């Protein structure tokens, strides 16, 4: 694969920090957090060492697939202000090194999960990696404006895998956790895409605001937010949690809708608009997910301790 990035001349070894940057550490904080929540909220117990290992394997798998994503998209990243300084478009690293690092990290993560925890969790982890690195990054992202909806599926795996690492089986609750992140991702990401729209247009990624226009994107932000609410509340409705989680989910869903409405109902933003409602929604959506999962863990821990029914 020919590199278009400027090379530093001699084969200067890349900084280890650049390898670390390839794993998208900021995305990984959300991955690790939701995976921990999956482990803690699952019924039954897991030895702390094994719980830690499961989280580590999930984090490594997420990191490995992020590396493969950056390897594949180096040319696209080079064309966007937000990403042009990543290690590959910045020319601080050889592409083949990134590819090999991604494959190695992914492979080790699956083996670690299989050997230490179990092969069902390992198979789900492998599925998540292939889903993100191949199905999403290589196949669908450059082809459909629903790419974010599909990409959300990749981000939705960590709590599911964390849960299954403890219980060894796929039940309704971990699938609901998956669904929550799945439906949360479109409003979360499209809010961002609305205020960085210009960049995606330039590199030819069919982001919803670019392809379908701003207005349909706003409508879809609203409708995904509406869809998300019953799914977020469902764990309580099916009896998987107590009122503690239920009330938190209801409150957070109302807040989300309250902030999504101004974004969803707006017509095209005027030239030079500061896009404040969109920025507000994007920021809130991150707090929303943290708060919802934290409430789930608090609810379950309280229940297992016998503090609430």
């Amino acid at each position: 694969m020919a590199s278009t990035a400027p090379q530093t001349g001699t084969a200067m070894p890349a900084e280890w920090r650049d390898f670390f940057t390839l794993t998208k550490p900021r995305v990984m904080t959300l991955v690790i957090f939701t995976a921990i929540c999956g482990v803690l909220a699952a019924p039954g117990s897991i030895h702390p060492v094994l719980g830690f290992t499961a989280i580590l394997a999930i984090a490594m798998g997420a990191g490995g697939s992020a590396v493969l994503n950056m390897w594949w998209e180096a040319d696209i990243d080079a064309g966007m202000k937000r990403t042009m300084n990543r290690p590959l478009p910045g020319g601080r690293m050889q592409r083949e090194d990134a590819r090999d690092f991604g494959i190695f990290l992914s492979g080790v993560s699956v083996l670690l999960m299989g050997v230490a925890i179990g092969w069902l969790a390992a198979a789900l982890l492998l599925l998540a990696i292939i889903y993100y690195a191949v199905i999403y990054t290589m196949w669908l992202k450059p082809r459909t404006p629903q790419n974010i909806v599909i990409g959300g599926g990749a981000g939705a795996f960590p709590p599911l895998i964390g849960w299954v690492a403890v219980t060894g089986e796929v039940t309704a609750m971990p699938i609901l956790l998956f669904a929550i992140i799945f439906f949360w991702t479109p409003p979360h990401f499209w809010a961002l895409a609305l205020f960085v729209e210009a960049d995606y247009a330039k590199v030819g990624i069919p982001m919803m605001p670019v392809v379908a226009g701003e207005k349909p994107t706003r409508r879809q932000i609203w409708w995904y937010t509406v869809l998300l609410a019953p799914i977020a509340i469902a764990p309580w409705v099916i009896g998987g949690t107590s009122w503690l989680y239920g009330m938190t989910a209801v409150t957070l869903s109302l807040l989300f809708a309250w902030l999504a409405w101004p974004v969803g109902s707006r017509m095209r933003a005027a030239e030079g608009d500061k896009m404040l409602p969109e920025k507000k929604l994007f920021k809130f959506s991150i707090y929303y997910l943290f708060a919802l999962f934290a409430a789930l863990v608090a609810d379950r821990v309280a229940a297992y301790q016998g503090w609430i029914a």
Partner: protein
Amino acid sequence: MTPEEQKEFERRRKSRNLVVAGTLLFFVMLFYAITIVRIGDG
């Protein structure tokens, strides 16, 4: 390679080797711990 580049080359190689060594050591300890825990299970 100029002397400065040589120096930078060696600095990077050293820091990478340290990270690899640390990671390996960590995994040795982790696998030891996993083994102990899983033997305890059985």
